[in-house]
C-alpha cells in the first residue's frame, strides 16, 4: 500500500471505520513513515478543532410554529401511499395465501402449455395422414384457395377505362 492509500485509511480511522487488523496496519505504517505520522497528527487536530469551534446548536423554538402555520394554511392531511409494491403484497397476507396463489397460477400455465402441445402434435399427425392420402389438399384453410382465381386481381378488359382510352386513341 502506498502512503496515499494509508492516508485514506487514516481519514477512515477518524470516522471509526477500521477493523482491528486495518488499524494495526495503519499504526505499523505510522511508526515507519514520518510524513504520514505528521498527516495523522494534523488530521486529529483538525477533527478536534472542528468539534470545538463548531458544535451543534439548538434550532430556534419558533421553527415548529412556522411549520405548523404553513401546514394549516395548506390544510392538506397526510395521505398514505395509494399504491406501492409493499401495499400490493399486503393484499396477499398471510404469506401462505400468496404462495398458494402463485402455485395455482403456475399449475394452470403448465396445463395450458401441455394441452396446446398435445393438440398440435395430434394435428400434425392428421395432416401427415392427409398428405399421404392427397398431398394437394394440404393448405392453410384461412388463406384463399390458390387454385381459385382471385376476383380482385381479375382484369376485365371490356370494363377497363384505361383500355378504352387507349383504344380511342
Amino acid at each position, binding site marked *: 500500500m502506498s502512503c496515499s492509500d494509508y492516508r*485514506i485509511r487514516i481519514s477512515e480511522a*477518524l470516522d471509526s471505520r477500521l477493523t482491528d487488523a486495518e488499524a494495526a496496519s495503519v499504526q505499523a505504517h505510522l511508526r515507519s513513515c514520518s510524513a504520514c505520522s505528521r498527516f495523522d497528527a494534523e488530521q486529529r*487536530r483538525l477533527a478536534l478543532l472542528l468539534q470545538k469551534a463548531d458544535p451543534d446548536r439548538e434550532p*430556534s423554538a419558533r*421553527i415548529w410554529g412556522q411549520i405548523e402555520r404553513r*401546514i394549516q394554511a*395548506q390544510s392538506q392531511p397526510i395521505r398514505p401511499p395509494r399504491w406501492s409494491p409493499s401495499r400490493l403484497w399486503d393484499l396477499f397476507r398471510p404469506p401462505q395465501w400468496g404462495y398458494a396463489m402463485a402455485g395455482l397460477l403456475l399449475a394452470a400455465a403448465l396445463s395450458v402449455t401441455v394441452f396446446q402441445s398435445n393438440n398440435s402434435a395430434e394435428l400434425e399427425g392428421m395432416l401427415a395422414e392427409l398428405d399421404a392420402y392427397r398431398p394437394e389438399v394440404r393448405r392453410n384453410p384461412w388463406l384463399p384457395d390458390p387454385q381459385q382465381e382471385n376476383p380482385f386481381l381479375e382484369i376485365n378488359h371490356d370494363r377497363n377505362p384505361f383500355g378504352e382510352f387507349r383504344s380511342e386513341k
Partner: protein
Amino acid sequence: MSTEIGQQELAEIVVRAQRGSSEDFYRLYSLYSRSIFNFVRRLSGSANDAEDLTQDTFFKVHSELGKLREPKQFKYWLFRIARNEVYQKLRRSQRTPEVSIDDDEVLYYDFLSDDSEDQDPERQVLSLELRQVIDKTLGGLKPKYRDVFVLAAFHKMSYEDITRIVGRSLLSVKTDIYRARLALKEALKKYLEKGKR
C-alpha cells in the same frame, strides 16, 4: 430529544404520521430537527438560512410523507430532502458564504488546549471568526465533498448511511471525505498551529 431510536420504532412513528397523526409528525420533528438544522447550517454556511431551510425541509417532509414507501428509510430520505433544499436555495441565490479575514491581524491562539474561551472576549471574537472561516471553507468545497464530510465529521454517520443519503458508492464517499479533509487542513492551517500567545 435524542435521535437514538430503534428502526422498528421509527418506522411505526412514520406510519402513524403517514396516516395523519400530527402528534407523531411532531415526534419526528423533535427527533430530527436539531440534526437537520445543524446539517443545513453547515451546508449553507448561514444560521439564518438554516432556520428557513429547516422549516422548508419539514414542510416538504409533511407534504411528501405519504410518498415514502419504506418507513425504515425515513432518516436517509429526510437528510436527502434537506440536502436538496440547501442546494436549491444556493442555486437560486448563487451565493457562497463570504467572510473577509485579514491574515496579518489574526493572532494565533491554541484553540485546542484551552477550554476557557468563554471568559476571554478576545478569544470569543477569534472563536467566532474561526467558525466563520470554517463556514467559508466548507462553503468553498465542492458540494460532493462538503455534504459527505459534514455527515461524517460532524454528524458521525457511518459511511454506509452516507451512501444512502448522497446516492454515491462507498469508494466515492470514502475518497471524497479524504479530499475534503485535505482541503480543510490547508484552509485552516494557521489555526492548527500551536498557540503563539
